[in-house]
């Protein structure tokens, strides 16, 4: 893992949204590295900032009400300071995006072929014929059986799985070094999910690209990720190689997440849940461990005042110190009271 070259380095990234004249951090001090030829999974609950992180990288968030501070290093340059024009050279060309819902992510009025060719128009000097040929080649590459016909069709004429294949074809059109997949399988059937994931990995192995896979599905993570970053309330709270994370999770949040996966071999009568909710952006605690309110039985002294990332073994980082004293037993006894 450590041998591969870093493609993208995110250092001290803060993304904040303006709500009624005050800026709130949706991303708080995120440090991450995406390496060549790896799948970095970003995991977390809804609203923890994973999608915001993805859009921050190439400035895709709606302009005007958003500020991004920090460093996003790509080829030694900080993308945060890039102008819209310079970002447009990176978007689609160096960094490809795959979005969650392929139906709404495709323009309903445009033929599939045209939508694939669009990126090529702006990033390459191909002629019309070359672009057409490339679009068909891409459709073939993502496993679409009848590229000529599909290229002439409109998004609504395709199935969900085919649409997501088209999205992938769009993302890889210019052979990007980095692919950012924002919940690429969430809107799909389970059987199609596996196909799409296989396709992503297959394409990655051909190009050695780095994939940032954003998901809340731990099953997906276990299947395809090489490293995992767990996010909670705008912060990365644990980073580890995938096996290490599943075998030896440290942070209370990660452990609660893994504990909440229903398992057939374990005989639980009730679903394991994490009590409380992710605080909303405006109610985010200003200091201290952001997960503390959800594990009230852990004493305050166990948390750091300003939680930092600690490397506890090579490549395994955990935020705060509360993991050292955390256990589930007390939650078990508390459950009766809570529910």
């Amino acid at each position, binding site marked *: 893992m450590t041998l591969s070259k870093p493609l993208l380095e995110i250092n001290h990234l803060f993304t904040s949204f303006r709500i009624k004249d005050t800026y709130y951090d949706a991303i708080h001090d995120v440090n991450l590295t995406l390496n060549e030829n790896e799948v970095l999974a970003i995991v977390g609950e809804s609203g923890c900032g994973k999608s915001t992180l993805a*859009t921050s990288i*190439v400035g*895709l968030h*709606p302009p005007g009400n958003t500020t991004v501070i920090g460093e996003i290093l790509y080829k030694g340059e900080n993308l945060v300071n890039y102008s*819209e*024009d310079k*970002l*447009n*050279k*990176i*978007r*689609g*060309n160096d960094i*490809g*995006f795959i*979005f*969650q*819902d392929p139906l*709404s*992510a*495709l*323009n*309903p*009025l*445009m033929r599939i072929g045209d939508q694939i060719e*669009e*990126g090529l128009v*702006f*990033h390459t000097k191909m002629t019309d014929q070359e672009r057409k040929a490339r679009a068909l080649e891409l459709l073939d590459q993502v496993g679409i059986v009848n590229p000529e016909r599909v290229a002439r069709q*409109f998004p*609504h004429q395709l199935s969900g799985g085919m649409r997501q294949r088209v*999205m992938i074809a*769009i*993302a890889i*059109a210019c052979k990007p070094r980095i692919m950012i997949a924002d919940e690429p399988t969430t809107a799909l059937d389970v059987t199609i999910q596996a196909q799409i994931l296989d396709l992503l990995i297959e394409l990655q192995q051909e190009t050695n690209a780095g994939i940032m896979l954003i998901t809340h599905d731990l099953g997906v993570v276990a299947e395809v990720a090489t490293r995992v970053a767990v996010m909670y309330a705008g912060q990365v709270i644990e980073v580890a190689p995938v096996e290490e994370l599943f075998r030896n999770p440290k942070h209370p949040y990660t452990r609660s997440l893994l504990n909440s996966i229903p398992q057939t071999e374990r005989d639980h009568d009730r679903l394991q849940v994490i009590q409380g909710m992710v605080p909303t952006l405006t109610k985010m605690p200003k200091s201290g461990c952001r997960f503390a309110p959800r594990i009230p039985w852990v004493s305050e002294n166990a948390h750091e005042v300003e939680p930092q990332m600690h490397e506890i073994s090579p490549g395994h980082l955990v935020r705060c110190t509360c993991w050292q004293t955390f256990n589930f037993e007390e939650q078990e006894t508390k459950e009766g009271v809570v529910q």
Partner: protein
Amino acid sequence: MWKTVVRRFLIMIPQLFVLSMLIFILAKFMPGDPFTGLITPQTDPARLEELRQQAGFYDPWYVQYWHWVTNMFRGDFGDSYTFKVSVASLIGDRGLNTLWLSLVSVILTYLIAIPLGVIAGRYQNTLRDKTIVLYSFVSYAIPTFVLALIFLYIFGYQLQWFPTSGTVSVGEDPGTWGYFWSKVYHLILPAITYAFLATTSIIQYLRSEIIDAQTQDFVKTARSKGIPMNKVYTRHIFRNSLLPIAAFLGFSITGILGGSVFIETIFGFPGMGQLFIQSIMGRDYSVITALVMLYGFLALLGSLLSDIILSIVDPRIRIE
């Protein structure tokens, strides 16, 4: 496609039947009879009675209805009592005037409304947007007849830029360029008045559609491909925002064929709207019924036209 159009026309038959029944019943309820207008102190009541007999006034209602409908199919809408000519030729003349006025009005409306709506939507909450929204509120708030009178006063009487009534200057020969330009010249002021007021809804529609489309996922996809924002607007946002406007087009074409009562009346423009008012004032029943029937037909045609236009611009809608 053609099969659907034909089928839609067939569906219009029962709709028109219900409409014609309603109009017939309403006409029967109206006070007076076709000969009321002919009564003068010299009229012999016996002669009047004889005329009523001849015209089938005492026939059962279904016989009368049958006569009316079958005549209509032959293009015979009866005679106008006030103009003393056949209703068909009357509507033909007036309809042609209104047709030209409508065409120019609709074209002007869309020429003004689309750029304004697009600018307001794209530069939401800027000074430009606020100015346009203010304009659309003002134009929405002004009643047609007030604006028409103001325009007529300023541009017609004070500045004398445009003629104040009629459709063509006296002395121009039909078929010459002078005649044509004279016609266009007479159209401009009423058309501008109409457009000034009709743009409101289109601007507001387009503005909110564009604001809405900006947040759609496919816009994010387009941006993620590295397409410059200007191109994202022209290639993705505008086309999707224009769909409801396109759907509106069918109605606005046929709707305006009915003529604008206020504008035509105030500008002394002999079109359908003016005819409608005149026929109501003059109790010209045969003209009223023919016009109401025609308006109903145009409304149905408008919805069909809108569906066809929408199916052309939106691939998701295929009428099969």
